[in-house]
């Protein structure tokens, strides 16, 4: 059961070979047992989960089940869920129990899925290693001395270690794709505006996008069919007809043009990662795809532009954490301003504070034009590069990350090195494009991710490419030994 796909689980539930309660217990036991050292979860609440599972069993018995009814799903603790702690891995929200549901949670609840728990992450989604959590670092199931990537590291680790059949995450600069790559699972960041941000605790509003983690592209499609959809409560949510994200899964790759940008194979890329990615590109070619050269001349500017824009928006988004209406309040202070200063100094971790300071600076008087405005212009150049590239190809392929998972603590004190992990992922966020990462090999025993970036609303096509690749390969079926 722990290796079953979502459609297999749904079939087993429908055939009453297993109940949702049993399935939920199975995964809850794995979280508490073999999964415990990974520290992948911030909160589990068996009673709540099992109550949902019982309701799902009733729905299945009544013949009213949908594709996800009764399937337990882990949610990144950035999605608020009524009655659940919703902490964003921050001391600031350690005591916050949400009085409402995120749109994504509502959609899963309506589909009859079971909330398995809230997964650990980098605080406020700011990080690339899931070490920056008030609840301690998450560990990589392939090597617990290494990081799972971030910021959705708990979700990626949980899926990789078979602690959950699937999970949700958010991706502001790579926070789904990078941990998916480092943990050997699949993760999709949809087109900006496809998944509602309502109830998804904001990091950088113009970049944040929720998406799924699973072990296969087909499962990602099933999850997207529930997660995606218009939400009037998010002004950036796009009002489009509902689509079936699985519709192109069986489409052959003949006639597909995959673009390979030379800029993604430069000096920063580890040789063994490059080898695995090149192998995957050859596999796509064997499946009928045509490989073409494309150029993203401003690729090298995406990390600096991103690390201006994201902190700027974050500095403002995180101003609401002031100890007045909810969340942490310092115990000792002298007057109102000191209450703010201490609450925020004690409630936020070092990386969050660094980004707030950077963001405050780039928006401040006299620096706005040189940093914030400039970065938003460069963002346009980056988006234009993609538009140009998509004239000659249907999808862009390359590595998701420049290296495999690094060791815990290795980059914790060096923000710049940490930021450079995002070198291949942030551009899709800046442009608002859909992108996914799937396992495509190993380097030194650690998984390597292949990134596919598509044009706006090309999710179904990307999932189709990934699915055909996965039918021809078995990288996505590999399980870390201690969790098999």
């Amino acid at each position: 059961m722990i290796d079953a796909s979502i459609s297999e689980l749904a079939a087993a539930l429908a055939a009453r070979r297993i109940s949702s309660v049993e399935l939920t217990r199975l995964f809850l036991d794995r979280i508490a047992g073999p999964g415990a050292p990974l520290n992948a979860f911030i909160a589990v609440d068996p009673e709540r989960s099992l109550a949902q599972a019982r309701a799902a069993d009733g729905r299945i018995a009544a013949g009213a089940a949908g594709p996800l009814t009764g399937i337990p799903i882990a949610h990144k603790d950035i999605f608020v869920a009524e009655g659940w702690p919703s902490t964003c891995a921050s001391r600031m929200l350690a005591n916050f129990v949400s009085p409402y549901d995120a749109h994504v949670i509502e959609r899963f609840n309506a589909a009859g899925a079971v909330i398995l728990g809230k997964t650990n992450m980098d605080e406020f989604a700011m990080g690339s290693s899931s070490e920056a959590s008030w609840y301690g670092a998450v560990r990589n199931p392939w090597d617990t001395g290494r990081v799972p990537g971030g910021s959705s590291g708990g979700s990626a680790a949980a899926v990789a270690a078979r602690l959950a059949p699937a999970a949700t995450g958010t991706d502001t600069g790579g926070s789904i794709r990078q941990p998916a790559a480092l943990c050997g699972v699949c993760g999709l960041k949809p087109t900006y505006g496809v998944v509602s941000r309502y109830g998804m605790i904001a990091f950088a509003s113009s970049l944040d996008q929720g998406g799924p983690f699973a072990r296969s592209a087909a499962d990602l499609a099933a999850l997207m069919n529930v997660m995606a959809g218009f939400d009037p409560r998010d002004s950036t949510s796009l009002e489009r007809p509902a689509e079936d994200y699985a519709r192109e899964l069986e489409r052959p790759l003949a006639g597909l043009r995959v673009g390979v940008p030379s800029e993604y194979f430069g000096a920063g890329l580890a040789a063994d990662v490059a080898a695995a990615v090149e192998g995957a590109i050859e596999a796509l070619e064997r499946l009928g795809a045509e490989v073409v050269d494309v150029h993203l001349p401003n690729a090298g500017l995406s990390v600096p532009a991103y690390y201006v824009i994201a902190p700027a928006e974050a500095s403002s988004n995180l101003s609401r954490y002031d100890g007045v209406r909810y969340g942490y309040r310092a115990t000792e202070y002298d007057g109102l301003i000191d209450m703010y200063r201490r609450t925020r100094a004690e409630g936020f971790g070092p990386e969050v504070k660094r980004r707030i300071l950077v963001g405050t600076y780039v928006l401040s008087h006299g620096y706005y034009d040189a940093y914030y405005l400039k970065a938003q212009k460069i963002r346009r150049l980056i988006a234009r590069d993609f538009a140009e590239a998509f004239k000659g190809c249907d999808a862009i392929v390359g590595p998701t990350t420049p290296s495999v998972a690094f060791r815990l603590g290795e980059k914790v004190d060096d923000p710049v090195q940490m930021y450079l992990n995002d070198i291949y992922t942030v551009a899709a966020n800046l442009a608002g494009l859909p992108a996914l990462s799937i396992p495509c090999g190993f380097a030194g025993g650690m998984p390597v991710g292949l990134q596919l970036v598509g044009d706006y609303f090309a999710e179904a096509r990307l999932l189709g490419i990934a699915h055909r690749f996965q039918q021809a390969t078995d990288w996505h079926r590999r399980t870390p030994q201690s969790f098999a």
Partner: protein
Amino acid sequence: MSLTLSEVMRIAALARIAVTPQEAEAVQAQLNGIFGLLEKINAVDTSGVEPMYHARDVTLRLRDDEVTEPDRRAAFQAVAPQVEAGLYLVPKVIE
């Protein structure tokens, strides 16, 4: 470019984050490392380029003027640090 210690303290004050004098130098060094990375954008010629504030070039959808939200004060204030008589309490605001 590099930030002076007083600039670090100024932005920390603007952001309402207490930075002790002991922390200040370490913060300054890290911020300057980060700004070293961000510097790169300064060299790019962006004349004539429109800034791209949103990921998608679409316009705003509007909501009808209807009252849809009920009173949920009790639920909201259950997670508040300090309330009294329905009010959120804060250290005295000095005008």
